[in-house]
């Protein structure tokens, strides 16, 4: 049986065609085949959130999706949304509030929070905590992260439309 699959997808706006092993997950594909190492690999079973990636406008666990499933998909990583400036205010707030130390969880945190700000721009602190409950931070703790999100709350929602969003109403 052929254990390889041909896939064609868009990553950060760029068209890519590759042959991948069927068992390659999306985050390993992005890191090792495309060289986009901003998405991190932590637990590899969907618990830690470090591998969070945006696929067709929604965040997913990069370790729980086969690259083969991303055929035809519109994929955005932390590199792409940084370049478009979509989450600039949030990134600035993270720096200002010391919302990261080692930075391992940060790409996943940022993509998760960007989705929250699009779905619920006025989220309360409790709602922010709930939304990032699937993203582990093992050094800063969550207080500073929630502070940073609060700083940008209400200003992020409109920015989301620029990069690979299907639109909140879809």
């Amino acid at each position, binding site marked *: *049986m052929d254990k390889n699959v041909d896939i064609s997808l868009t990553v950060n706006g760029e068209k890519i065609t590759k042959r991948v092993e069927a068992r390659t997950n999306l985050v390993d594909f992005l890191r090792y085949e495309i060289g986009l190492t901003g998405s991190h690999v932590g637990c590899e079973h969907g618990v830690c959130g470090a591998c969070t990636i945006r696929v067709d406008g929604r965040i997913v666990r990069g370790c729980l999706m086969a690259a083969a499933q991303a055929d035809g998909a519109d994929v955005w990583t932390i590199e792409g949304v940084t370049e478009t400036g979509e989450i600039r205010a949030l990134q600035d707030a993270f720096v200002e509030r010391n919302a990261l130390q080692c930075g391992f969880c940060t790409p996943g945190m940022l993509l998760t929070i960007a989705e929250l700000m699009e779905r619920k721009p006025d989220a309360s602190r409790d709602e922010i905590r709930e939304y990032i409950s699937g993203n582990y931070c093992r050094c800063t703790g969550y207080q500073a992260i929630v502070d940073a999100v609060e700083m940008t709350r209400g200003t992020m929602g409109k920015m989301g439309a620029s990069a690979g969003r299907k639109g909140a109403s879809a």
Partner: protein
Amino acid sequence: MKPAPFGYARAATLDDVFSLLAEHGDDAKILAGGQSLMATLNMRLSEPEILIDINRIDGLAGIEDTGDTIRIGAMTRHVDVEESDLVATHAPMIAAAMEHIAHPAIRNLGTFGGSIAFADPAAELPACAVALEATMHVAGKDGTRDITATDFFKGLYETALGEGEILTAVSVPKIAAGWKSGFMELARRHGDYAIIGLCAHLQFDGAKFSDTRLVFFNAGDRPVSAPQTAALLNGQSWSDALSEKLSASLKEELDPPDDLNADGPMRKHLAGVLVKRTLAPLAGA
């Protein structure tokens, strides 16, 4: 860890699925949302020869109003159930359960039917399906059949799905006038599997309970109904004395397992706590 090598086939139709299942049998796994499957593959708890991806099959996703029921396609993503007005209006128990299913990134890809067919006894949706007396729609190469939710769950990760069959949709009866639904679970961290959870579906005659269904999850090897305790509610209004009676009854009726999160006696105690916290507000107490 990385999964062992496997093949991958993208099914375009249900007939593709049936012929692939006939060819590969137990060596094949169905890939729906993959949010449980991919984790077990990564941990090498499962090493199938081939994954049959059913994500591209038309007609398996979507939520429709069929009159008396809401029909939820097996491939409907959790997030779409969570955001559905139809579900919020006609199946408030399921609407309340959705935010407890893992985390947003997992709900974006995970599917309603996948969660049901996987039959994890700690999962929310199988218990909701039993409490609401949902009907499972199943298809195989010889045709389709319907299975009641109670008959569907056979044990730990075990269902009534036969060889070569897959779940295509679930029909949930609309909540009727005079009925109320409650959903609550206790977990150490939001999004984790519950230590124990409760789906309650109740009919009221004025302030009195007249028909009650209590179904617990993570209380056994499948969704666990507590009909004896539920029967104690009939004809009663809520009171502290009734609450104590229910707790005592649950300790007799339930036999939950021990695990790292809680032992059986603690789960029995928490079952009573859940009943009190869920039913008292529904009864207006």
